[in-house]
């Protein structure tokens, strides 16, 4: 094995390790929502993903998530909150609100219909 080969192979392995870390191991910090007159509200931009995609809320208080889709790619056309049986179409440019009151601590995941874009609400 010459030097070139060693470098190429090493780089390959580093890339693999990086992919594993970046896409699977990385843990994001959640965004704490703003609370106004008893309602926890957050605006989520939908463009190739949910921004922010991890939202931290308190339990027992209503949560209002305003989804604003800023792209025409069909992937993100719909947002699905499977656990709480809610879903909504997100027309481009419009703000669509999902409202619920989390009663239990834990995570409420949400995603696009195909499961490519994901986010979650962490209930504390």
């Amino acid at each position, binding site marked *: 094995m010459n030097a070139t*080969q060693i470098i*190429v*192979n090493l780089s*390959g392995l580093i*890339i*693999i390790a990086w*992919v*594993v870390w*970046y*896409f*699977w191991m*990385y843990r*994001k910090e959640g965004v704490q929502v703003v609370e106004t007159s008893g309602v926890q509200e957050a605006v989520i931009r939908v*463009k*190739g*993903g*949910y*921004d922010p*995609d991890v939202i931290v809320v308190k339990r027992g208080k209503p949560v209002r998530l305003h989804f604003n889709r800023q*792209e*025409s*790619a*069909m*992937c993100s056309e*719909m947002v*699905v909150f*499977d656990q709480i*049986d*809610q*879903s*909504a*179409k997100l*027309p*481009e*440019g*419009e*703000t669509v609100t999902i409202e619920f009151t989390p009663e239990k601590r834990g995570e409420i995941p949400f*995603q696009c*219909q*195909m*499961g*490519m*874009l*994901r986010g979650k609400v962490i209930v504390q």
Partner: protein
Amino acid sequence: MTTDPVCGMSVDPAESVANRKHQGQTYYFCSEDCARKFDANPESYIQRSPEGNHRQKGFRAASLNTGVADDMVGPVHVELPLVGLDCATCVQTVERALGDVDGVQEVHVNFPLSTAHVVYEQERATLPQLIDTVKQAGYDVGVADMRVQIEALHCASCVQTIETKLLQVPGILEATVNPGTDIAHISYLPKQVDFAGIRSAINSTGYETVKRVEEAETVDDETTAHQREYKSLMRKFWFATAVSIPVMLVAYPELPWLYLPNLFVGEASEALIRSLFALSGLAALAVMAYSGRQFFTGALAAFRHHSADMNTLIALGTSAAWIYSTVALIIPTLFPEGTATPFYDVAAVVTALVVLGQALEVRAKGQTSQAIRKLLDLQAKTARVLRDGQEVEIPVEEVLVGDIVVVRPGDKIPVDGEIVEGRSAVDESMVTGESLPVDKESGDEVIGATVNTTGSFKFSATKVGKDTALAQIVKLVQDAMGSKAPIARLVDVVSGYFVPTVMITAVLTFLIWFNFGPSPALAFAVVTAVTVLIIACPCAVGMAVPMSLVAGVGKGAEHGVLIRNGEALQTASKLKTIVLDKTGTITKGKPELTDTLPAPGFDAATLLRYAASADILSEHPLAQAIVNGARSQGIDLVEPEQFDAIPGHGVDTRVEGRRVFVGNIKLMRREGIEVSAVESELERLQGDGKTAMYVAVDGQMAGVVAVADTIKEDSIQAIQVMQEMGLQVIMLTGDNERTGQAIARLVGIDRVLAEVLPKDKAQEVHMLKQGGEKVGMVGDGINDAPALVEADVGFAIGTGTDVAIEASDITLMSGSLKGVPYAIEVSRATMRNAKQSLFGAFMYNSLGIPIAAGLLFPFFGVLLSPIIAGAAMAASSVTVVSNANRLRFFKAKSFKEVTT
């Protein structure tokens, strides 16, 4: 700072895009467009600009309805239409509540008109505040929605201007402008503002209101968005194709099928070849930048979220091909001998193919959700309403609860309501799936979007806007389409790991070829790695279940079968046992005359005439059933001269001078009437589960009449179909064993759970579930609610406009049992379809990726071209959507037999 007179934006004169001098005054503009508009008609804008206001003293917005300019102060008068005001005392409640609001000067509630006249100071109280107050008092305010198309919105900040302006108009509660679609969505009080008012408010900001967008058009928003997306993708495709052809010619000069031997590069010099490749490289870059733009933006956006999707794979694949080619072209010495061959064709052609695939997918997706559009198209556009005694035609959005709506022959019924005058037959097939028109008269419910046949009637609107049955159906269907089938949850777990796995596979492929591959190893390594990236299709996997679900739920809705969510659908496909409640489910739940058995010396018609005439004044349901039965046989009835109801016995009457008794054995014994002639008949009828009564005329036994809760016309067929489908059908009833068995025999059910008290129904279902098989329960949504919830799948028999029955997983709008086998068949077909797609997608990826990696090469010397991989990838996602579309042509086999 000054104000742009056209759009009303704040403009810094130093930074303004343009300025104009007019009548000695300088105006500054935010954009060229505004300046152009100003040039065209300066006067119209000066009037409105604050600087100009003093010149046009007392200028106000054009409409009376919007008669408040932004600078106006002082009290405002509003007329709030109130909903739910059903007692005169409510008037005080509302008046007091509104009177307490800070800034309200005067309140007067008009009970007969259901309106509140409020005078308030705009700077201290707001309209939404007033409405909230009314709501808190326990009532509602009739609010309508309107969408208005605005022309040539060119900046996002104009949106703000228009919204602010609209909100200043009294009567407008909410206004949002969507810069993506140029549509303003406005909530307003219909008696305060109309379209003209809204238009003048928008026009006053310098924008043109094109037209009011009909509800049917707005529901087509999605279609429009899809079409726009399709067109844009097709444009990208054609561009990529046009560029790809010369790029291909450069890349494969020797290909015999091109039939252009040596035309380009065959005998060309080295330098010419290099410059041709350089041109190809630029062309391919253009394709990637324009046609493939969404892959890169999508990949980048996903990357920021630490996720990867199809875009990532395509972006990586095409850019790897492009970068390798470019390096090979510029510094060929960097690579081992013979590997420095550019392959720009891959970048261009793969982009073209994948974009084409996406375009086809968009088109096919549009078809999948056609069911929803069909439902929305049913909505009536206008309604004829009585206002102040006048018949006026108004947009359906402006109909308020309590309005009297006039329906003429052939009209579409605009909203839900209750008939107050007239009668007709209504074709409800579009909503309930029931093909025969339904007779309606005063007091009956009518459903919006159904079509009146020949009669005319007036009805009082009970549900409008979002509350109508149709709106609820649409919502239910949309929610169901957006829900997840449990099988899709598994897929989601997989797809979360899919793309990074493919990326890792690509790197490994590269390394293996690089280390162990034949010469030129580097070229092989790059091509195979790119092919792996391109062939992998996460979309096909992710779309399989949702696409089938959308098609299946839509198919159900077409036949009045509303499936609540993916879970209900998946479970319904696995049902083995169906429990049917007897009353109201198998039977009509309403007694009807079934038998007329005359005693010797009487004929059936005479017997029935006496029995029915005697009962005509009785309000007992059994008596009413006899009366209705006689009338439907065309028998003329007379009113009895004397009528006496004897509780627990029957009736004692005098009809046409003759003493007529209708009642049970106790009544006959009391009157000493001999019953032996018909006693055995009566016992037989009772054995069949019917309620039989003796009829005696002038002390003589005239015969027996029987009424029973009759079986719905199609119950027997529906049950037969379910049994043919391999389902075990069980009847659940509160009747005694004998009666239950009698009905069960008639409809062909072997297993009966009789004498089950209503509260024990859920327990019975629970016991059946212990067997380990999936149990479905069919019943009404109210009495049987606990049993429906307990069952794996609860089917609720629909009742008119009450669509969203909480307890049910599946609602049968038509009230016919036929819906049950249909729902199960649709579910089975949908799940079959989803599994086909899913299996196909998994097979495709698990075969395609190893082949792309070159697994076949050591054995057969076969290597996949990245271009073929691109075509395969595009085709696989299109196939999934097309497979789901096949469900649109699904015909329930058994259902068809039943109907014919």
